[in-house]
């Protein structure tokens, strides 16, 4: 008598899976259809990562932890490569209650309120200046400019086939007072501990 039972359970499982998928879909990214799972683009992934990095920062230097009374700004300095992706990724998210917002800035000076600053590759020549302006402010600098972490950035996106990996300059993060979760470090490709 177990066979029918099993099949019943199987069909039930299918239904549940369906529901879960639906829930997941509804909860996260609005999908065109339940069956339709488009492969994310590079900048979709990066956008997602950007929104997630903030979750792995345990301490933001002397800045208070993100809370509901302020917004969590993810700034894009330079030419925005993300298009809608970052806005989509950020939509409805919050970190610690603080709603994520995307700010596109032109000047490094405007990055003071940002928690995470994505420096576009268009600014690859201004890095020094940028860093100079930011200084030791607890801003998580992320970029996909090559050698970003050597050049003074904290997280550098490194493409790896279809995937997007990243390197972390831990020492630098520490210097600016950002305490990063080991979980993040775990998944990072390279972790520079020494300057």
């Amino acid at each position, binding site marked *: 008598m177990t066979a029918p039972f099993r099949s019943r359970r199987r069909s039930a*499982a299918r239904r549940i*899976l369906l529901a879960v998928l639906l829930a997941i879909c509804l909860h996260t990214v609005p999908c065109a259809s339940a069956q339709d799972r488009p492969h994310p683009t590079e900048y979709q992934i990066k956008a997602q990562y950007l929104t997630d990095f903030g979750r792995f920062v345990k301490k933001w230097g002397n800045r208070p932890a993100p809370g509901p009374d302020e917004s969590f700004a993810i700034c894009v300095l330079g030419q925005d490569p993300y298009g809608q992706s970052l806005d989509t990724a950020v939509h409805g998210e919050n970190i610690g209650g603080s709603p994520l917002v995307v700010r596109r800035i032109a000047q490094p000076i405007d990055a003071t309120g940002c928690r995470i600053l994505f420096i576009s590759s268009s600014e690859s020549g201004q890095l020094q200046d940028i860093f100079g302006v930011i200084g030791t402010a607890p801003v998580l600098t992320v970029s996909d400019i090559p050698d970003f972490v050597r050049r003074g950035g904290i997280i550098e996106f490194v493409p790896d086939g279809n995937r997007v990996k990243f390197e972390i300059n831990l020492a630098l993060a520490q210097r600016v007072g950002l305490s990063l979760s080991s979980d993040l470090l775990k998944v990072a490709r390279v972790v520079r501990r020494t300057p």
Partner: protein
Amino acid sequence: MKFNLGRYSIRKKLTWMNLLVSGATLLLASSAYVAYELATLRLSMVQNLSIEAQIVSANCASAVVFGDPDSARNTLSALSAAPHIVSVSIYDAQGAPFATYSRDPGEIRETPLTLPEGRPEVHKFANNSLELVRAIVFQGKLIGSVHMRSDLTEISDRLLRYGGIAVVILLICLPAALLFSAIFQRETARPLIQLADVARVVSRDKEYSVRIPASGSRDEIALLIDAFNEMLGQIQIRDAALLQAHERLNLALKSSGVGTWRWEIADGAIVGDDFMYPLFGLDPGADLNGYEKFFRMVHPRDRERVRRTATESLRIDAPFEIEFRVIWPNGSVHTLTARGNMFRDENNQPVRLTGVCWDVSARRLAEEERQKFVSLVEQTDDFVGMMALDGTIIYINHAGCRLVGLEARRAIGTSFADLHPEDAWSNLSGEILPSVLRGDGNWVGEARLRHLATQQPINVLMNIFPVNDPETGQLLCFAAIMRDVTERKQLEQQLLQSQKLDSIGQLAGGVAHDFNNLLTIISGYSELILGRCDPNDPVVEPVEQISRAAARAAALTRQLLSFASRQASEQKDVHLNDVVANIEKMLRRLIGEDVQLSLSLQPDIGIFRADPNQVEQIIVNLAINARDAMPGGGKLLIETANIYIDEESAQGRLALEPGHYIMLAVSDTGVGMSPEVKSRIFEPFFTTKERGKGTGLGLSTVYGIVQQSKASITVLSEPGQGATFRVLFPAAPAGKTGASEPIAPPPSAGTETILLAEDEAGVRGYVRHVLERNGYRVAEASNGLEAMDVIHSFPVPIDLLLTDVVMPECGGVELAEHFSGVYPGVPVLFMSGYNDRLWMEGDQAVNFIQKPFSSPALLARIRELLDARLEAGQKTADTPPQTS
């Protein structure tokens, strides 16, 4: 299947009990624990797995977020440290596999559980594995799910482990339990086993002095032991008491001489105890047992009674008591009493008679002695009675009952006062009894009783005395012995009478004697003068008158003298009938025409010694007296007969000895006499006639002659019923007479059939009794009519009619006529009252027997008549038939 626990000893039972209890307890406990553990194990497994899933998801969250499966795989590989985890799979948010760990390479389940909506975790036990799916939530976001699969070895491991532990525990505990039970049951069972042992000893050896040692504990068994010991003690005490009682009983039996016996129904065996032997005069140990042996000792005449009593007792299931005699070996006869009872077995079936037996010979002797005295008292003719203090009769003998006409069975309890006329009783109770009570001793004197039926007074000589208890002297009752003195009184009367007459006679005689002398002078000298005178002398007439008067005076004197028995008499042999015949003519002249004279003279009258002249004088005087009693005429009957006076009839008659007598009876139908007149009739000069009529000496003269002749005279008369004077002359001794008369009462028995007609039941009964006792067959009737019925209906011919004269319905005479019509020639004997005959018409030859008659007289008469008839019959048989 019946499981008989009783077979096993307490030890075994306790041991097994312990083992079972312990084993069961442990088993139950272990099972419960194991079950509990199992139940919680699952839960804890799930919990553990959940925790592991959480750890995994926490650790892999970043890998999932940043799409680094390697990192995740790295983390997952750490799970190899958890050998129970079969596989772990991480799925991303879309449900695509992200990273997998599998303990056993190559084995991956395909369709995992899916998380239902809203639930962070779900698990399922299936197929030896536990699956758990947990959502990976990173900072509030569902980023994927982790699927963990664990095998259930932990459960089975745990089971085995616990099972093993339980077994080990059991293996340890059961022997321990055994050990403890061994110790415990020793403690518990020991007293019980001791108890059982002692009980066995007690019941086997009947030894009650053993005791169970006290155990010192106070539990129920100890209490039981205490109680048991106490019970043994009680039994010992009771045994001792029983023994004592038994000894006492034995002693009692021995000293009382009571034996016990039993008679088995099954085989009829009779068995007695030791005490039975002396009762039968046997030595102890002699062979008494046995039915036949026992009965051989019983007196032959009592055997049947004993046997019957015993079997009857068995039959009706009632106790019996019987007295019987036994003959001892030495020949002496003893009386025993046996009491017995039926004894049943448990099925209520009769099994035997058992009882006791003891010697009552002494009592029997005493009883016999008593009986002798009782019979003495019962046989005496005197009234013997006892009166209780309340005045009721507590004993009265037969003679006493007869005397007062009291029925024996109603005697006891009757008030003594009832036997007395009122005045007599008031005297008795008022004066005599109190004086007796006072201690004046017994009182003897004359008293009067009262016949309860006739109310006639009875004169008695009474001796009344108190009966006291010999020990205490207390008054128990009064006793009275009384003798009927009526007869004595009568005799006294008669004596008085005769003495009176004697004294009068003496006086008269004395006077007469002197008078005679003077008369002799007067008549003598008268004769002289007449002889000297000339016949024509005018003095002749007066002198003749003187002479005649003197002669008359002399006659008178003679009469007087004969009354006084002074007259000389010539004793000769007198034939009464001849005397009567001689004076018949004169008598007829004397009595006149109005009086009818009839004679009834017994043909073979006997002879007696007397002066014939005097006898004539008697007849004449009696006739004159009878004539004078019948002024208007009547009948006069003169009878002669031979009479035999027996003892009975002689009673009450002064100076009348039993013997043969010649009777002369003169009866009339005159005016009769009252008792007062009767009592004075023989007094000289007593007369009921008017003055001038008669001298009043006639009967006195008769009396005197009677006295002189050693005869006796009685008067029977009632006012209006005429009178009969009966003189009895003692017959001359046998040998002087030639007549063949019965000297001794003749054999008077016979076998003839007699018809008895008598209206008075008492007389009828008496006569019948007498006749039947002497062999006659009697047909009886209470009056003439009845008798006539009998005549016609009696099956056997009647040989004699014995009838009363006066009977209601139809008198004797009429009956006799009828009878003679049916039975011609068959004798008829009339029983007559004193002058019944006089009332009869005609003077046919009739046979009478005078009432009251004695039985011998009656029998003699009957026999005489029957024999006469036989002879007559014989004669006719002998006489050749006349041919003419």
